[in-house]
């Protein structure tokens, strides 16, 4: 059955986007540094890992803030993901571009729809931080694939936030060392 997999890049100090996020700067100040491992001459390992993320996804979940604040205009009206994407937002939100489906009746509904589309493949949760925290709290994430980048950003958007969730046990199921990044896979222990 399809798993919900969080897959994103994070600095050693837990940050997934810099300060001052805008459509011109969707990852915030110094945010592109988080993706150097993917876009600046990726080695064989990093290329393989990127491909694995793309090919294993049958559907994509993205949070409203990520979509509207950072990416809506940046994507030029085209879904950049390898699979149908679902945006989770409040009722009355602005329409989304082709390749995206707007889901306004909650996270559980979005997960259900995404799983239906994904079939045997995974549902890739690509962020943002707020949606991730909500889904962790609701026990809706099966695996965390964290690409740990060897930098301290100091300031920016924290993946695991200030919210003060209950403790969640993980089991490390994968570890790949590479240049400029260490790839971790964890299973959420339920």
């Amino acid at each position, binding site marked *: 059955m399809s798993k919900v997999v969080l897959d994103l890049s994070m600095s050693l100090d837990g940050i997934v986007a810099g300060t001052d996020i805008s459509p011109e700067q969707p990852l915030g100040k110094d945010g592109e540094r988080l993706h150097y491992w993917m876009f600046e001459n990726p080695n064989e390992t990093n290329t393989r890992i990127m491909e694995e993320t793309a090919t294993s996804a049958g559907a994509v979940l993205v949070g409203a803030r990520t979509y509207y604040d950072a990416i809506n205009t940046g994507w030029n009206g085209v879904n950049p993901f390898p699979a149908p994407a679902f945006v989770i937002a409040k009722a009355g939100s602005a329409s989304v571009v082709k390749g995206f489906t707007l889901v306004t009746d909650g996270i559980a509904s979005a997960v259900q729809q995404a799983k239906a589309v994904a079939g045997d493949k995974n549902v890739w949760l690509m962020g943002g931080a707020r949606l991730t925290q909500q889904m962790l709290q609701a026990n809706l994430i099966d695996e965390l694939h964290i690409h740990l980048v060897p*930098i301290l950003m100091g300031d920016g958007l924290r993946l695991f936030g200030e919210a003060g*969730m209950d403790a969640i046990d993980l089991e*490390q199921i994968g570890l790949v060392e590479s240049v400029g990044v260490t790839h971790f896979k964890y299973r959420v222990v339920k």
Partner: protein
Amino acid sequence: MGKVILDMAMSLDGFISGVNGEDVGLYNWYFDPAPKSEAVIQELLTGLGAIIMGKGAYNTGEEETDSIDDNPYKMAHFIVTHDPHEKIVSGAISYTFVTDGIESALQQAKVAAGDKDIAIAGGADIAQQYLAAGLVEEIQLHLAPILVGKGKRLFDNIGGALVELESTRVIDSSGVTHLKYRVVKSDE
């Protein structure tokens, strides 16, 4: 000369303890070590010549051990604190209470450590001060597979400038991953 190493256990969500300094399962790997973790611990025991810590970390250690001799780190310890206290000595173990700041503590630790490394062993507050002052040369994190949710976060208050690191070692052990990084100086 030895290196200044920030050495701490940390959860995936960046916490080094619970809200009041509680263990919250971050030290299971240490108290019940798998073979690879045993080797990492041995490396610390033999490779370090001095340890720097804050008063909170010292108090926690003191509460949890019956006697000073239970401390396996037979070396000089320097406690950064506002409260003066007489030096405590037992064999090769000593606790010197440094009230004139992190640089003074580091100076004294370097003298005590000789060629060996110096560990900054906690708490978060002291670690942040050394990081913000650019005094940390290496970071070793014992990364525990847990999201703690709330507690003392290691990498708060370290300033807004991006710091580049270089991963120098990854040890995949049971229930913990030992990560070592070199801090890349801004003029490199």
